C-alpha cells in the first residue's frame, strides 16, 4: 500500500520517513500489521529459495497430516496437505504468487477504476457518460464468462488472470470515486482552484484525488481478500494459476472438501489471507489518519504544557 502523501514531501521533506516511522510506532496495531506484511513480503521474495523444494515434495503416505504433529520435523508444524506436502512451506512459497497476483489486480483496478471515476465524476462531457455506462456493462457481465472468453481468446496466463480480476473489480472503484467527486467538485476550494486557472487534470489530481483516495484504499484493502479468493475460483476454469504453481486461494479451495476431516488444509491459508487483509486494513486506516491533517494528532506525541 502506498501512503498517501498529499504534500508532506514539499515541506517536511527531510524528516518524512522518520516521521512516518514515529507515527507507526505510536499505533501499536499498525506496527504489528506492518511487521506482518513485511514478513509476507519477505516470504514472497525469499520463499521459493528457502523452502521451494519442501513445498513441492510429495508425501503421499502422510497426506492430511495433522498440524502440530512433531514427528515429521518443524516444516510440518501446520500439517500436510492432500498430497502430503508441508503446509507451512506451501504458505511461504505461495505468498509470492498470491501477493503478486492480488497486488497487481487490486492496484490495477484501483488505478484504472479510480482514474476513470475521477474523470467521470468531474467532467460532464460525453465521455463521462460513456465511462459510466461501460462500468454498468462490466458490472452486468458475469466475471466467469469474462474469464472464459479471455481464456479462449487469449489463452491462460497470469497476466490474463490479472486482467480479468482487475476488470471485474474495477467498477466499484470507478463508481465510488465518481460519487465522491460529485460532492467534492461542488466544494469551494475546487471553485477556488478553477478560478486560479488550474486545469481539470490538476484539480483532479491535487485537490480531489487526495480526498477520494482514502475510501478507495479502504476498499482495496478488503478487495485483496476478494481477489485472492476469486482467483482460486477462476483456476477451476483453467484460467487461474495452474499446478504446480499455487496461491493461498488455491490452497483454500483445495481444502474445501476436507473441512470436516482435515480442517487445517483450508484453515491455514484462509488464516493467512485473513491476516493479510486485516493488516492491510489496519495499515490503510493508519495511513488515512496520517493523511488527514485533522486526524493526524492521534499519532503525534502531543507534548502538553507544564501546569
Amino acid at each position, binding site marked *: 500500500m502506498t501512503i498517501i502523501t*498529499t*504534500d508532506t514531501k*514539499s*515541506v*517536511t521533506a527531510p524528516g518524512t520517513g522518520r*516521521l512516518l516511522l*514515529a507515527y507507526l510506532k505510536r499505533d501499536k496495531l499498525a506496527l504489528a500489521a506492518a511487521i506482518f506484511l513485511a514478513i509476507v513480503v519477505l516470504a514472497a521474495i525469499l520463499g521459493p529459495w528457502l523452502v521451494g523444494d519442501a513445498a513441492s515434495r510429495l508425501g503421499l503416505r502422510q497426506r492430511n497430516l495433522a498440524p502440530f504433529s512433531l514427528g515429521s520435523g518443524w516444516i510440518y508444524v501446520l500439517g500436510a496437505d492432500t498430497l502430503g506436502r508441508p503446509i507451512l512451506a506451501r504458505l511461504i512459497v505461495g505468498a509470492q504468487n498470491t501477493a503478486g497476483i492480488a497486488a497487481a489486480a487490486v492496484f490495477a483496478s484501483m488505478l484504472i477504476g479510480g482514474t476513470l471515476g475521477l474523470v467521470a465524476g468531474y467532467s460532464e462531457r460525453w465521455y463521462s457518460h460513456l465511462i459510466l455506462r461501460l462500468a454498468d456493462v462490466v458490472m452486468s457481465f458475469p466475471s466467469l464468462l469474462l474469464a472464459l472468453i479471455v481464456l479462449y481468446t487469449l489463452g491462460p496466463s497470469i497476466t490474463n488472470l490479472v486482467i480479468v480480476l482487475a476488470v471485474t473489480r474495477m467498477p466499484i472503484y470507478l463508481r465510488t470515486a465518481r460519487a465522491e467527486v460529485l460532492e467534492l467538485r*461542488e*466544494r*469551494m*476550494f475546487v*471553485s*477556488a*482552484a*478553477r*478560478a*486560479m*486557472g*488550474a*486545469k481539470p487534470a*490538476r484539480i483532479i489530481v*491535487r*485537490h480531489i484525488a*487526495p*480526498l477520494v483516495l482514502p475510501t478507495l484504499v479502504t476498499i482495496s484493502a478488503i478487495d485483496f481478500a476478494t481477489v485472492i479468493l476469486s482467483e482460486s475460483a477462476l483456476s477451476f476454469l483453467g484460467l487461474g494459476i495452474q499446478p504446480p504453481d499455487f496461491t493461498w486461494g488455491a490452497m483454500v479451495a483445495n481444502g474445501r472438501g476436507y473441512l470436516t476431516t482435515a480442517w487445517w488444509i483450508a484453515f491455514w491459508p484462509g488464516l493467512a489471507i485473513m491476516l493479510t487483509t486485516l493488516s492491510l486494513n489496519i495499515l490503510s486506516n493508519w495511513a488515512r489518519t496520517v*493523511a*488527514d*491533517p*485533522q486526524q*493526524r*494528532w492521534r499519532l*503525534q*506525541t*502531543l*507534548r*502538553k*504544557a507544564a*501546569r
Partner: protein
Amino acid sequence: MSNATNPILKVEGLTVDFLSDDEPVRAVDDVSFHVGHGETLVILGESGSGKSVSTSTVMDLIDCPPGDIVAGSCLFDGVELSDLSAQARRSINGRRIAMIFQDPLAYLNPVYTVGRQIKEVYESHGAGSGKDARAKTIELLRRVGIPEPENRVDFYPHQFSGGQRQRVMVAMAIALKPDILIADEPTTALDVSVQAQILDLLRDLQRETGMALIMITHDLEVASSMADRIIVMNGGKVVETGIAKEVFSNPQHAYTRRLISALPPGNAAEAPNKRSTAIASETLLKVEHLTKHYVLASGAFSGKRTFKAVDDISFEVRRGETLGIVGESGSGKSSVARMLLGLNAPSSGKAVFAGENIFEMNEKRLMAFRRKVQMVFQDPYGSMNPRMRVYSIISEPWAIHRDILSKNRWKARVAELLELVGLLPEHADRYPHQFSGGQRQRIAIARALASEPELIVCDEAVSALDVSIQAQVIDLLADLRTRLSLSYIFITHDLPIVRHFADRIMVMKDGRIVEEGQTSALFGAPRHEYTQSLLQAVPKPKWLTHAQ
C-alpha cells in the same frame, strides 16, 4: 445594568493550548471575563488573538485532544461547567447558551435545508415539533430579514448569500431565547441597514429576556453601539477590560489605543484616503447586461422555478481602478463575482476582459485569463483545500502558472507574503483548520496576491479583520495597485473602507445597480433612497443612545 456581583457566566484564568508534535500552540492565555443578565460584553481584539477559541471553550466545542485546556474555570449560573456530565452540558448548549459562528457556510450542514437545521433546535430541546416548529422557524427567518421565508425555509445553505447564511446562524442561535448568546462576528457580511436590523433584534431580545450577550466583533462602531463592557484581547491575553465608554474614550493599553485611533473620524469625507492616483483610461473589464437566474430545486413534476439574482447589470473597470460594490445582503454581489471568474455560467450578458468576452473563451484562453484575474472568496475556510498546508495553498498559483516564479524561490516568497498580510512565516506549515477566521481570510488574500494578477475580485476580503490589520491589508493592496497598476473589484459591506479605498462605487439592490458614481460624489450626494438609507444607518455608540 451590569451585574458584576452575580454574573451568569464567569470565566476565570482560561488557558488553552493546541497540541501536536511540536511545541504546543497557546491560543488562549489566562483569560478571564464575566457577563451578567441583560449585559453585553464585547470582545475586541486582534485577529487570531484567541477570541473564538475562548468562547468555544465555554460551549465545550474545542476537541481535547488536540486541544488542551491547561487551566481555567467556567462558572455558568453558579455551576462549574467542566464538572458537568456531557449530557448535562448538551442540554445547556443551544437552550441556555447559544453561539453564532464566524464562518457561516462551513458551520451549516450542507445537506439539510436551513429550515430543518433551525427546527432541530426546537425539537431537540422539546420546544415544539412538526408544523409548530416549522411555523416558528419561518417566523424567525422573517425576523432576521430573510426575504420570502416561507419558500426559503426549504432552501439549502449553498443557495443563500453570505449575509443570508449569517442571518440563518443568528436565527438558529436565538431560536430558544438563550440566557447567554455568544455572537462571533455576527454581522461581518451584512450591509449597514441589515446589520442595524440584526443588532436591533439582539437588543430587543436582551430587553425581553434579559439575555446576556457576548459579542466578538472587529467593528468598533458596532462594538460601541452594543457594548456595556469591553474586553480587548491580544496575543491570547486580555490586555484591557472596562466599561465601554471608558475604553473608547480613554484606552489604556497600547493595542487598544491603536485600535481606537483607527476609527474614522466623525466626518470622514475629507479624511486622508487610499484611493488610486493614477487610473489609466484603458478599460480592463466591461460588463454588459449581465443576468443570472438560479434554477431552484424543482421536484420531478413541478416546472422549473428560477430566481433572478442578477438582473441586467452593466459596468466597467479601468486599469488601476478600484470599483467598490456595496449593497444589500443577497443583492447579487457574490454572484457577479463568481460569474466574472467563470465559476458560474451567466444566464445572459457579456463580460469583455482585455477585448475578449470571458463567457466565450475556450479552455486555453480561459487559463490565460484566470492567470490575470484572482478572487478572494467570501468564505475563506471553504475556499482552501483542507488537506493542503498553507505553503501549498499560497504557492499553488505558481504551480499552476509555471512562469511566475521559479520553484527555489517559492519558500521565501510564501514567507514574505505571509508577513505582508500580518502572519508569521512558520504558519506556512499549518493546515487551514488550525487558523482563526481572520487568519484564513489573510491567507486567501496572500494567495490572490501570489499570482500577480491584473484584477483581483475581493468578496468581503477584509470583513473578519480587526481594524489595525484591516488597515495594514488595505495599505498593502493600495500599494500594489500603484506599483503594478492592479485593478480591484472590492465587494464589501463596510462603508468606511470603500470610502477610503474605492475610486468608484456601485450600489446594488435586488440584483440591480441602483446607483453608481465616483466615491466622493456618491458619498457626498447620494441620489437613490437605498444609498441614502445606507449612509445614514451608521450605528451610534450605546452610551449616547442610552443617555437619552
